[in-house]
């Protein structure tokens, strides 16, 4: 029964997160039509005495051509057609909101991971050493040897089996994960068995 609840909880959280992600995505794509996010860009090469120039204007796609965008027109009268023939106009749009949200979400995830990494590699061993004294340290160092993260996972697991409650379940799951990562690290980095 508890495994069923756990499974339902996981499924519910996954569905909730994916619904949130999808709805935000839909909102983002809908809100993409910011004023400054559409433009018609005309590149005109040098012609006779005029140097090359780039013209930008916020205009709809059907009006995106040389006559509407190039303003003020540098040539007069019959030269306008020859000038406009060389110009190349392209309609572009982007979504500045998408860019902003994506970069900020990515940086926050990266920051969280870095903080967690610093905690796991530097802070946690110091805390455990201070809380549980010297004897545990000897036992865990015998087990692992060199300085790996998660070096104390074995004994924490052995101790945490006795008291079943939610916090302990989380810690138990975390220690199991640490052991898995340690096994992976051994096969990839130390023994070079997989992914050489």
């Amino acid at each position, binding site marked *: 029964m508890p495994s069923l609840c756990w499974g339902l909880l996981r*499924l519910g959280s996954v569905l909730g997160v994916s619904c949130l992600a999808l709805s935000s995505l839909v909102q983002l794509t809908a809100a993409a039509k910011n004023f400054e996010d559409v433009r018609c860009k005309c590149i005109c090469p040098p012609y006779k005495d005029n140097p090359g120039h780039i013209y930008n204007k916020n205009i709809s796609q059907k009006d995106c051509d040389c006559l509407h965008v190039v303003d003020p027109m540098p040539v007069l009268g019959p030269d306008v057609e020859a000038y406009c023939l060389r110009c190349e106009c392209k309609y572009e749009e982007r979504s500045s909101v998408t860019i902003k949200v994506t970069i900020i979400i990515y940086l926050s995830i990266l920051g969280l991971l870095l903080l967690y990494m610093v905690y796991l590699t530097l802070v946690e061993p110091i805390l455990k050493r201070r809380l549980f004294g010297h004897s545990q340290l000897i036992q865990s160092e015998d087990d692992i040897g060199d300085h790996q993260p998660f070096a104390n996972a074995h004994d924490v697991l052995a101790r945490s089996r006795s008291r079943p409650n939610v916090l302990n379940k989380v810690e138990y799951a975390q220690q199991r994960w640490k052991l898995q990562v340690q096994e992976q690290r051994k096969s990839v980095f130390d023994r070079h068995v997989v992914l050489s």
Partner: protein
Amino acid sequence: MDFLDEPFPDVGTYEDFHTIDWLREKSRDTDRHRKITSKSKESIWEFIKSLLDAWSGWVVMLLIGLLAGTLAGVIDLAVDWMTDLKEGVCLSAFWYSHEQCCWTSNETTFEDRDKCPLWQKWSELLVNQSEGASAYIVNYLMYILWALLFAFLAVSLVRVFAPYACGSGIPEIKTILSGFIIRGYLGKWTLLIKTVTLVLVVSSGLSLGKEGPLVHVACCCGNFFSSLFSKYSKNEGKRREVLSAAAAAGVSVAFGAPIGGVLFSLEEVSYYFPLKTLWRSFFAALVAAFTLRSINPFGNSRLVLFYVEYHTPWYMAELFPFILLGVFGGLWGTLFTRCNIAWCRRRKTTRLGKYPVLEVIVVTAITAIIAYPNPYTRQSTSELISELFNDCGALESSQLCDYINDPNMTRPVDDIPDRPAGVGVYTAMWQLALALIFKIVITIFTFGMKIPSGLFIPSMAVGAMAGRMVGIGVEQLAYHHHDWIIFRNWCRPGADCVTPGLYAMVGAAACLGGVTRMTVSLVVIMFELTGGLEYIVPLMAAAVTSKWVADAFGKEGIYEAHIHLNGYPFLDVKDEFTHRTLATDVMRPRRGEPPLSVLTQDSMTVEDVETLIKETDYNGFPVVVSRDSERLIGFAQRRELILAIKNARQRQEGIVSNSIMYFTEEPPELPANSPHPLKLRRILNLSPFTVTDHTPMETVVDIFRKLGLRQCLVTRSGRLLGIITKKDVLRHMAQMANQDPESIMFN
């Protein structure tokens, strides 16, 4: 690992680094389907459940497409920003890359299209100068520092959180799809870390791409969603169908090529590809491409940075340089595969492999220091390929398009016939040559480090650089020697005949084909990238030539070579076995080896079996009638024996070490006061595959391949002689090919 106290695993799950039993998975799925169909007639609710079960496949594909497209969009946007972060920062909004920062600016001029006051390089921010020696040095230092920071963060994250996230992923996914189990390789942490660190390593300027890792990311998404539905989570065979489709979605978002993605999955990655998977893969690839397009990372509704749209024609006489480019691609592919495998083997066996973090930092430092001075290696590889693929119109201001224009011309510039190369083009040629040599050398050392690394973009860059140089050479040759026979017919003076951008595309296809040995999927991906069906013939000519040249030196592409290096039990469907050996030559036990460890049908005690299991490490034992007659009854798996005995000792009454273990329907005749016997018929496989001892190995290898067997028993006139496992088959094939048979490590 007793202290882990895992929940009691049911009979039917597999151990890590073992092969699945395809036949059993298929029959379990058929059973499940039959049960659901028969129950659906009972009530409306059961009928709805059967409909949901049928539709769950499509729901999984939809979810995979959405998540893969979203992750690819996030990766593209983040890479765009972080690559430019090495050079400068946007003052108005720090999250804009260079191009986005100057998007709304009115100060861009025709000559300096990239400059705008809002985007400032690091030299302008730190020492307030934008030109000169000190500005150059400050920019150089900042570039190196950012590159080192990104690479260090990436390798630390991989090492601490998810060591399986390193490498390309495609060799391991090929092995997984053929039936191998690597637990955690497609897990959630691997997905998260691979996505995050992929952005970091691509932005750090290392010579690698993101296409191979995107396939891994998409397969992780596939694994994640298939674990939500019991139809896929409990059946390893069905799960691999979902993973095949997810791989197609991965390539589709990497290249913007849905059809190419499906063909890549079919040709390169998948092992069994039923027609149903073809349709579902296409659906997943389309959904992924559509999601990526709606996120619109490049601001112009294109899926890939180097989409070209010109339609200039090519001429038959140009097939000669195209075939030369194909030969170059094949030679480069062979060189790269051999050197990279040698370097990876050295990393695996010597002390070099003990310092992964230091190795990444040193390679990044070397790459950044050598790459910065040359403008073609300073920019990101995707932008380089895009610039090389582009045709020179009037509006291009890059150095590659610096041709000498006739000042008295009256017609518009892009209608000009072939022009002689100006100074800029000559400078570009030798810079490209240096960049080519650098990229060839550095990619050998970069691919295979302990960071996510892909191969496609560097190979395409090498080919594009070579192709563009050949194209410019042919163009100038045609301009200066109109009267030569080969040019006379199709390249009259005043005609625009040679397009160097096309040569770059053909070169890119040739190099990519030489390394990976892709055929159809390569051509389809390239023409989906270019949008033009006119160039199929040059692309095919180059791809075919490069594959022939590369195959003349060795049969293996880079992914098969890495599979061999790691010793995975991958029985390739492309290999042909043409030797005349028989099953007796390969089976175990050989002459001089101890006899086969068998179980008897009703005369062994529990203690005998436990001793047998402890003393040997075989994955299964054949069950015979008795030691005298040795007639075969069936096959029992080691894991299931262990679980069943443990279960019986805990739960059943009266089972002691002296209890007789029997596999028949009825218990054997026992004396009155003997302990309760243990019936284990339910774990016995009554239909193991058998061949006779004179079966040719050709047939045996075919059976292993087509049915996905793990072991096969050898009999003669009904009596059990020996066993052939997949490992024995692989070792035998390696021995026949004069390779080291001890390199096959897994079972």
